[in-house]
């Protein structure tokens, strides 16, 4: 039987994930400013430069940044296999990701082909690093579970999404004749429906029972769901490329995708309602909000299949998926991961009574405040495609969430530094 060492050195130095986590909220704030910068409502047109720039600030600058930081912590636990060369991987990913995301957003805003042409190779480097490191980690993992399959499928779809994204950016920059609409749809499907959804499902299989002491996801669901979603995404890709006719075939394929996504949300809500740990918990509330929004998004997306006349509903379903579903879960995860990391790095090496507990590292009232702010932002996003004032509320919500996250992260870092100093002074 293949074995790997399980030791505390598996965890990367605390500076590695915290670097990703502290940069990420700055992109939320940037997205907020970008949304406010245009004369027109950016949500009214899916292809508006401000919406494209802000969306990529959120997906690349915030979501990918947090996921990159978190995956290095999560892999050793959920698939019992650390990421290789954590420091090198982190530097090779974070710098190109920061500059690539900034240049891409600037390129969209200014319609500047030079910026786009510098951005896409940088982003390619960041994601190739992540994909290679994740594949090595998966190959070394002795675990045989549904999470491992989900992460593998998520990484494969991420590869496809990034390749299409690079092609689109290069195409816009150089004026290539490409089927832009089809490629953009495939890029969005693989990014959100593939990478984001599959990764969230795979991690949820482990963390939902862990954090709330719920029953496990049913084995048949855990084993079958992510391969089924992956298969449907491939069918969807084929339907786009081969222009499936009749139209009902496209509706069936997309309907299957949303049915599967809803099954995950419904199963999670049922498990959470049967949780053993009944106390109020901000992460639980973030997760529940995310799952409810995913169900609403699925219903909306299905409705747009039958009534495709209004483009704004399509924008709304993408917005809800990103802000209401993915961002809710990411926020919830951050509030477990960051305090635990600080505690873990202070505690390791022995029993120390002076180590603050998780709630002293990030006080819970900040998490509840963040949840309220986030709910408000999601609610405003529902009206944003039709009501210009709501765009201000969405922007304000994103700006305040970014500021709050920066504040709580620096609070956690300062608790870490003070406690470390105290521990070092008191050690013989």
């Amino acid at each position, binding site marked *: *039987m293949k*074995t*790997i*060492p*399980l*030791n*505390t050195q598996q965890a990367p130095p605390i500076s590695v994930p915290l670097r990703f986590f502290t940069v990420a909220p700055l992109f939320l704030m940037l997205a907020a400013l970008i949304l406010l910068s245009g004369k027109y409502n950016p949500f009214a047109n899916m292809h508006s430069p401000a919406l494209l720039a802000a969306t990529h600030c959120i997906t690349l600058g915030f979501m990918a940044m947090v996921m990159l930081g978190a995956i290095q912590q999560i892999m050793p*636990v*959920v*698939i*019992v296999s650390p990421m290789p060369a954590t420091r090198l991987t982190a530097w090779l990913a974070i710098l190109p990701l920061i500059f690539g995301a900034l240049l891409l957003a600037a390129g969209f805003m200014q319609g500047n082909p030079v910026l786009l042409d510098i951005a896409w190779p940088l982003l390619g480097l960041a994601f190739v690093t992540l994909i290679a490191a994740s594949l090595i980690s998966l190959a070394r993992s*002795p*675990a045989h*579970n549904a999470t491992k399959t989900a992460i593998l499928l998520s990484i494969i779809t991420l590869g496809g999404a990034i390749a299409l994204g690079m092609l689109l950016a290069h195409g816009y920059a150089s004026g290539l004749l490409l089927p832009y609409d089809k490629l953009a749809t495939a890029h969005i499907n693989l990014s959100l429906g593939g990478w984001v959804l599959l990764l969230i499902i795979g991690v949820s299989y*482990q963390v939902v029972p*862990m*954090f709330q*002491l719920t029953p496990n996801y049913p084995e048949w669901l855990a084993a079958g769901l992510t391969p089924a979603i992956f298969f449907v995404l491939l069918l969807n890709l084929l339907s786009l490329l081969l222009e499936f006719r009749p139209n009902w075939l496209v509706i069936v394929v997309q309907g299957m995708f949303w049915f599967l996504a809803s099954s995950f949300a419904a199963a999670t809500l049922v498990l959470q309602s049967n949780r*053993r*740990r*009944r*106390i109020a918990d901000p992460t639980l509330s973030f997760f529940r909000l995310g799952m409810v929004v995913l169900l609403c998004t699925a219903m909306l997306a299905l409705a747009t299949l039958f009534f495709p006349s209004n483009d704004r509903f399509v924008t709304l379903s993408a917005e809800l998926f990103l802000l209401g579903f993915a961002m809710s879960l990411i926020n919830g995860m951050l509030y*477990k991961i960051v*305090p*635990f990391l600080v*505690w*873990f790095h202070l*505690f390791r090496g*022995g*029993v*120390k*009574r002076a180590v*603050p*507990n*998780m*709630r*002293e590292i990030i006080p819970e009232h900040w998490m509840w405040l963040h949840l309220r702010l986030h709910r408000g932002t999601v609610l405003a996003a529902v009206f944003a495609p039709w009501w210009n004032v709501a765009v201000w509320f969405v922007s304000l919500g994103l700006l305040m969430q970014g500021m709050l996250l920066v504040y709580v992260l620096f609070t956690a870092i300062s608790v870490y530094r003070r406690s470390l100093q105290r521990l070092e002074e008191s050690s013989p």
Partner: protein
Amino acid sequence: MDTITEFMKEYHHSCDRAFADSEQAVLDGKWMEAETAFDDFRTDMARHFHIEEDKLFPTLISAGGPPGPVHVMCMEHDQMKGLIEQMCSALAQRDTQEYGGLSETLLIIMQQHNLKEEQMLYPIADHFLATQLGELLDDMRSA
């Protein structure tokens, strides 16, 4: 439950239940109930550590199992024991806030520890100790 993985997984779940009951009672301020529930939880955990540290792990090492993961699991046991003692003090002082923070911390360390054991260490033990499983499981059950 014919394997170490199944037996110990079930034990983890039983400790989880005791953990949740004592946390709920403390946060509700039901101190008498909390004392009893916490006592049950501490006893469950102590027995679990005893089974692993005095029965399973030594047998696994003698059968040629990997000492590295066993050493890490024992270190994490020490971390958990430290937290449980701190929770005991918080309970004695009726300090709900402190208990809540400690139990939140213990939950995460306990769950990620269990996951590593269930996904890696116990399957290794089932593999290395295949020939003496029945006898060892009887010994663990009676501990």
